[in-house]
Structures are given as structure tokens and as C-alpha cells.
């Protein structure tokens, strides 16, 4: 609790620092360039995840320029640092669109940062590509969700545990904020719908950066010793994962007894772990670095060459940016202009190669189609893919398993253009949430 307060304070001061440094990305507006905004935290607590995405964007833009740019013009990246500070995200977004005049912005990681910039992009009518898995229950004319919606990650993961591992008891463990809470609500409804009794579901929330997992792991152990196969679905975020897995290993809970499937642990996070205690635990994503595919090999090679290190890994949100950027490029070429409305209409239905050997398509609800992969953590920090969906899964903005959103659909194609059309009433409420 109190640590978070301190975080805020620290972010506040980081803000001052960032404000003084933030103008470094500014450049003179030139007619022969198209500007692309990159809105990722380069300092503060989220820098750990977001810096990589900034570099990914720089690489993608660089490559596009080598191919001759876009509409005969050079692309120019405008990088700003919102410093893991949510209100600053909104300010920086405004700066990107109003002052820099970017054609599109790629950015944000946490849901709260996305919620913070959403009104800005809607007001200024400029597209944002959001590359991280999120809780759904949102649809905006200007936001394109290239990360996974719950039905593209959480639901297939539960299906896998249920059908392949035979799990009957469920522990939904998460960090206490909006993404885990909403995801767990959806999962709980989904499990109940599958006939799992309430006694067989345990839900547990922990604060950000929780480091003392003794009691919770002990509870998990007890919950899992009732004779039924038990699995943990973890939406535990960021830093809290290492102590969690360490405690599991120390208390003798192995992946074979009680597997943990995580939605926030990827290659990048694993590179900072001592992976020994994690081996055999699972993660669900739409992409793993270990995917065997030519496009993927090329991407990894290009990335490691760009960043100048063979140790650097690739991960799911990077793939999402790869897909999102290529979709945007294709849509601009299709529309022949960078005008936001034209591009937003043109991009629907655009298909580009993803990194797992198929094509991803932008759906009318601004989500994309992706395969879902389940991987087991190996001791070298990579994933061994043990299962994948037979086809592509289209992202669903409004979960079918929550009573409030089951009847909502989102379709941004021209005459309808509504993010939350209520099928049962035949009305568009015209509001988010």
C-alpha cells in the first residue's frame, strides 16, 4: 500500500525529470516525412517492459524506410517518455498529436495508461495501436487492440488445462488491479458455466510487487491436496512473479503437481529470472520466440542485429507491434492518405503475416485474429510450445461470459460505426463502458 504511494511520489519527481528531457524527440516538421508517435515509458517502473517496445518500433520504422518509406515519404519516429506516470501519458499523447502532428501512435502498456490516453485520441481523432494483452470490455473508434483480448489468451488457456491436463480445481491468483480483476471475473463465469462448483474455485489477490508468498503458496498447496487435479491461473504482474515461483519451488510444489499458467510472464521477463524454479510451468501467448517459422527467424535476426546483442529475446507484445505497424502501413497505402478517418476505415479487413506462420486480420471491432499458443518454460528461459489452437481466434471486445457485456458487439465499419451495439435492444449507447 504504502509502497505504491511512494511509487506515485517517485513518479512525480520522475515527471519533472522527464519534462526537462522530453523535448529531445522534437524535430522540425517537414513535408517529405510522415511522423509516427512512440508512446512508451523509458523511465520509472514500467521502463522494464516498455523500453523494448520503443526499440521495436524504431526498428520497424527503420526497416520501412529502407524499403522506400510510405507514400513516397520517409517515416520519422517521434519518441516521448511518459515515465510510467499515467496522467503524463495523456499529456504526452496530446503533445504527439497536436504539436508533432503524428499520423499514428504506437504505445501504452498498462490498462490504466491506455484509459488515460483514450479521451485524448478520441478528442483529436488520431489512431493508437495498443500491443499488450488486456481485459477487454472496451472499444474505441481510434484504438486498435493488437494484443490479446481475454478470449484470445485466458479462455483458451483454461480450455487447455481442463481438456489436456484434466484440471478440476482452480486457483485464480492475480495482482490487485483492473486487468486481473476483470479477467478473473470472466474466467469465473466461464468455469461456472462449464460446471465447476464454487468450492473448486479459489480467488486470491495480492498487492503490486508482493514479495512474501509464504501463506498464499501454503494455501494453494492445501487447496491442491484434496485429491483433484489443481491448476493455478496467474494474472500476477511483473515483479511479484519471481518470489511467487521461488516460494512454490521451495515449498515443493512442482509444475507436475500444480501447474501455474501465467498471462504476464514472457521471454523478456524470464531473462531477469533464475529460471530454475519455473521449469515446467506454463504461459499462454499468441507468440513465442521459439516458434519455428521463417518469418520469425528473420524477425529475430533483424531484432538482434538492430539492438546489437545476440542475447536479446523477442516476445508477444513485440509481435503485436510488428503486426500493428504492418497493418497500418498497408492501410495507409490502401487509403492513399494518412488521414485518420480514411485509414481507420481502410485498415478493417487488412491481413498481414504474423510471426507464427500465418496471417492476422484486423476485424471490424478493432481487434485482430491470432493463434493461441501454450508454452512450457524451459531452463534456458525459452518456451516449449505444447499446444496451440487449431485455427485463428478473433478478438472479442465484449466478453460473452459477463452478463453486462454478453449482448454487446462492436463494429466500426461505416454506416454502423458503433463500439457497443446492444443486440438485444438494437441500440448503440455511444459510450465506452
Amino acid at each position, binding site marked *: 500500500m504504502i509502497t505504491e504511494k511512494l511509487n506515485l511520489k517517485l513518479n512525480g519527481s520522475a515527471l519533472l*525529470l522527464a519534462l526537462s528531457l522530453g523535448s529531445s524527440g522534437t524535430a522540425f516538421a517537414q513535408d517529405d516525412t510522415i511522423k509516427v508517435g512512440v508512446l512508451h515509458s523509458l523511465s520509472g517502473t514500467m521502463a522494464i517492459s516498455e523500453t523494448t517496445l520503443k526499440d521495436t518500433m524504431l526498428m520497424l520504422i527503420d526497416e520501412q524506410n529502407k524499403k522506400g518509406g510510405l507514400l513516397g515519404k520517409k517515416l520519422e519516429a517521434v519518441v516521448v517518455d511518459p515515465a510510467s506516470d499515467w496522467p503524463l501519458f495523456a499529456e504526452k499523447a496530446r503533445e504527439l498529436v497536436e504539436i508533432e502532428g503524428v499520423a499514428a501512435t504506437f504505445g501504452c502498456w498498462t490498462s490504466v495508461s491506455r484509459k488515460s490516453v483514450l479521451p485524448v485520441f478520441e478528442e483529436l481523432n488520431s489512431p493508437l495501436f495498443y500491443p499488450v494483452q488486456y481485459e477487454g470490455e472496451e472499444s474505441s473508434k481510434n484504438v486498435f487492440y493488437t494484443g490479446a483480448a481475454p478470449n484470445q489468451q485466458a479462455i483458451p488457456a483454461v480450455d487447455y488445462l481442463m481438456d489436456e491436463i484434466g484440471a478440476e480445481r482452480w486457483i485464480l491468483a492475480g495482482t490487485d488491479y483492473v486487468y486481473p480483476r476483470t479477467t478473473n471475473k470472466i474466467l469465473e463465469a466461464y468455469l461456472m458455466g462449464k460446471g465447476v462448483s464454487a468450492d473448486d474455485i479459489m480467488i486470491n489477490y495480492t498487492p503490486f510487487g508482493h514479495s512474501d508468498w509464504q501463506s498464499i503458496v501454503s494455501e494453494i498447496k492445501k487447496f491442491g491436496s484434496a485429491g483433484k487435479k489443481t491448476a493455478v491461473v496467474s494474472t500476477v504482474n511483473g515483479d511479484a512473479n*519471481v*518470489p511467487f515461483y521461488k516460494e512454490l519451488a521451495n*515449498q515443493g510444489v512442482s509444475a507436475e503437481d500444480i501447474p501455474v499458467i501465467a498471462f504476464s510472464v514472457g521471454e523478456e521477463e524470464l531473462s531477469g529470472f533464475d529460471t*530454475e524454479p519455473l521449469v515446467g510451468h506454463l504461459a499462454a501467448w499468441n507468440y513465442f520466440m521459439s516458434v519455428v517459422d521463417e518469418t520469425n527467424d528473420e524477425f529475430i535476426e533483424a531484432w538482434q542485429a538492430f539492438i546489437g546483442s545476440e542475447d536479446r529475446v523477442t516476445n508477444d507484445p513485440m509481435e503485436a507491434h510488428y503486426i500493428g505497424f504492418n497493418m497500418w502501413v498497408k492501410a495507409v497505402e490502401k487509403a492513399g492518405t494518412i488521414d485518420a478517418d480514411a485509414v481507420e476505415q481502410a485498415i478493417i479487413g487488412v491481413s498481414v503475416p504474423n510471426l507464427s506462420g500465418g496471417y492476422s486480420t484486423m476485424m471490424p471491432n478493432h481487434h485482430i485474429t491470432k493463434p493461441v499458443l501454450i508454452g*512450457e518454460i524451459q531452463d534456458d528461459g525459452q518456451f516449449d510450445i505444447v499446444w496451440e489452437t487449431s485455427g485463428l481466434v478473433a478478438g472479442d471486445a465484449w466478453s460473452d461470459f459477463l452478463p453486462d457485456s454478453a449482448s454487446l458487439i462492436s463494429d466500426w465499419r461505416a454506416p454502423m460505426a458503433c463500439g457497443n451495439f446492444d443486440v438485444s435492444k438494437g441500440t448503440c449507447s455511444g459510450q465506452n463502458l
Partner: protein
Amino acid sequence: MLSVIFTWKTKNLCLRRCSSTLLFIGLFYISTVPVLAQTLTEASVSPLQSLAENLTSKKKDIRIQAIDELAASGDERVGVWLNALLEGQLYKRKSDGVIVIAKKSGKLYALTDADTNVPLEEVKKRALSKISINNAIRTKLRGLLSILSLKNPDPEKREAAITQLVGKVGIDAMPSIRDMYETETDARVKQQLRLLISVHDLDNGDSQQQADALAYADGNMNQSLINALRTLSLQAEDDSTRALASELVEKAEVKLKWYARVETVFFGISLGSVLVVAAIGLAITFGVMGVINMAHGELIMLGAYTTYFIQRLFPNTIEYSLFMAIPAAFLVSGFVGILIERGVIKHLYGRPLETLLATFGISLMLQQLVRTFVSSQNVAVINPSWMSGSWVVNPALSLTLNRLIIIGFCLLVFALLLLLFNRSGFGLQMRAVAQNREMARAMGIRSSRVDALTFGLGSGIAGIAGVALSQLGNVGPNLGQNYIIDSFMVVVFGGVGNLWGTLVAGMTLGIANKVVEPWFGAVIAKVLILVFIIIFIQHRPRGLFPQRGRAAEG
């Protein structure tokens, strides 16, 4: 020829519903077929090499099948191979497709011939491809290996093997297990066999066997046994058995509850010791010197990073790295602490607000330095093997080793500090300067030197704390922030200027937190603890152990 067929009920897959025989593993003739193995000349291909292609197949089913075939081959080296596979040491050499056992040594991999156990030349990782395994294969391997080690001459191995098999052995295998029980000489192995037999008999035994098993189950807290009892209490045919079974379940549950309480107290003490370790350096700089040092957390972080660098510098001595890291971290953090004191704090004595702001600035600078020059990512600090795992007291209570060691470490550091404070000349000088600077100077104590050393000591202790905390959680630029507030809380709650207060406060908060946590969850538990401290400080602003006498008024 002794040949035992094990029927795995593989509960994981189909639970009790299907008792159908899923796997037959006829393995036991291994010990009786060395004749066969010897007749194979060296020129002939070993089963491992002949299965090489299937073992490295991309398809999991083919790999699993290959493992079954390997196990069924009856070769005497099967145990070694399966073990190497489980440990992830089985590789295929790309140049000739031969399967070798490889262990990492420095940057290269040391190879041994899997067939002959003869060392081969070292190669780079690129020359090898690993035979990867997943959970399904791992479970399979453990099962196969347990069956193999049932005949192991080492009683500990036998015991471990039997523990693996509890609840998983089918009725066909029971006669030979019962024979084994009769002939077994080691008491602990015998005990484990009895458990295995009882779990089986509660479910499938005849009435005499069931009665024996019930007698054995009385007072036992093994979870498989309790689960079997629970099933029996619902499904047994006669009423008296059902009643007896449910009575035994209740009895075991009462016992379990009691051990759960012991466990909670242990968790509390362990959390408390982490708080004390993190706070004790601050108890010196803030408590004794009165400096509000917001960079305390970053001094802890530096200690943790020192551990990381020590492990990087000496990759072959991970087991002892902590012993090197402790003095190194003390020196690094202590040195940085003295620099901070000499460079900044010295000029700000008596101005707490400015000190707070200045040290806060320093903390941000230290964080960003690490981000810039090391990495914004967390770094991996490895746990030595003696810090992993747990000490199993009984089936209901096991204490994790890393926590036990940190509790011990915390008490040791505390005792040493106490000795230093109360029994050494330097300690006397520190206390003198803290209590009355003018008088101490008049007595000939160089107060500014004492200030620097005291601050260095507090900082060095923070560095040591970093070594301990690197074993529990993340090591990254934000590590310090996670502990700074908790540290201040402990010191203020305990009473400023009192080492005993820090110890008692840390332990109290730790235990209180863990007692509350199971009821309200981790988030609310933390809130409740904060509320408690706020109310407490309102009534006793000087904490649990206020300083008395003239110094307190100063």
C-alpha cells in the same frame, strides 16, 4: 525371473473413475539380465543410440513412445539415461547425431559418452541440440525412475522412489510390494512402504487389510492417506468402517489445524526477520543518528547488485558466492554511505527536511545510475542449492530453508550489532555522540569522524540486507523502493534509537500480518497493519521502546 507389472492409475489424467490399466511397464528383470547386456559387444548399437531419432522427434507422442521403448529395453544403463534426460543433460551432437550427456562447464559443454561414460572433448552449445522434455514426459520419467530405484541399494533413494509411488500403484503390483515390505530392513523405507500399502488398502484391500490400514492411519497426517480415508468415510460398505474413517479424518484435521498455526507463526517470524534485516541499517542511521535517509533502500539495492556481480565474476563458485558477497556488499554500500555522508548529509545536520529531500534525490540518482549502466531489466541472482527446498518436519509441516537461513542471519546480524554497540569502544563513541555531541567532543571524541563511520556502518548493514533480500525476490533498480517504507515503519514503531525496539517491532508486524492475511487477503492485511500503526503512533508517538532520559528531550 522376477517381473513385476505396475498398473498406473495415473490419477492426473482420469482420476478414480477409470481404474482401467493405462500403462504396463515390465521392468524388473533389469537386475537379472546383465548377461544379456554383456553379450552385446561394444560395436553393437545401444538402445539409446538406436532410438536417437525418435527421442529427438518433434512430435511428443513419438518421444514418449521412444522413452517407453528405452525403459523396456532392459539395458542396465537405462537409469543413467533417464536421469540425464530428466536433468536436461541429454543432448544430440549435431555433427554425427550421437546422443551424449553434456554438462555446462564455463562457456563450453563437457561431454561424456552416454554409452560408455567416457569423457569426450568439450564443445560449444551450438554443436549440440538438447532433447527437450515437458511436464508429461517429466511425470513419465519420474515414474519410471522410481520403479527403477525400488531396488536401489541406497535406502534414501528407495524411500524417495516409494514416496513418488504412493497412491499410484495398481492392484497387480501389490503382491510384490507386500513381499518387499516383508524383506525390507531399513526402518524408514519400511515405514514408507507401509504408507504406500495402507493408501492402497483403504481403497482396494480386503476387510482385514482395510482394518490394518485404518489402524496405521490413526494419527497419521499424510495427505494421500487422509484423502483415502475421506473417500472411505463416504463409500465404505459397513457403517462401523465409515464411522471409524470419518473419526480418523476429524482427528487428523485437528492435528493439521494445529500445525497450520505453527506454520503461520513461522511465516510471521520469517516475514518479521525480513523486515528487521531491511530496517536494522536504518535503525542506526535514522534511529541513532537521526538522519532521515531516503536512500536507505538504494543502499540495500547496491548490496543485492553486489551479489549479482560476485556471481557473475565467479560463475563456478555459486554455492559460496553469498559468503563472498556479504563482506563485499558491506564494503560497497558502506563506502557509498560514507560518500553520501561526507558529500551531502554533513552539511545538513539539524535540518531534517533538507536532509530528506537531498537523500531522496540521491536515491533517484542511484536508481537511474543502475538503470543506465547495468540494465533497466531485473537481473538474475541464483540461489545456491543449500538455500533451496525445505526441511520436512512431518507430513503437515515443512519449513523452507531460505527462510530459516534468513531468520538465523537476521538474529546473527542483530546480535553482532548489539555487541558492537554495547561492548566496543567505537560503540561507546557512537552512543556518546548520539546522546550529547558537545559533551562527547569535549571528551576528545572526533565527532565528525564518528558520524561518518556510524553512517557507513548503517549503510554497510543495508548492503548486507541486500544480499539476504536478493535470495528472496527480484533484483532490479526498484528493489529499494519496496523496502524503504516498511523499514521506516518498523523503526518508528519500535522506537527511534533502540535496536531492541526494531527487532520486536519487525517481528510483531510480521506475525500480525501473517495472522491476519488468511482471513482478509494480502491486500487488506497490509491496510489493517497500517491502520494499526497509525492508531498506535497516535497514542505512543515515541514507539514501543521510547528512549528515556535527557537524550529523549533533545
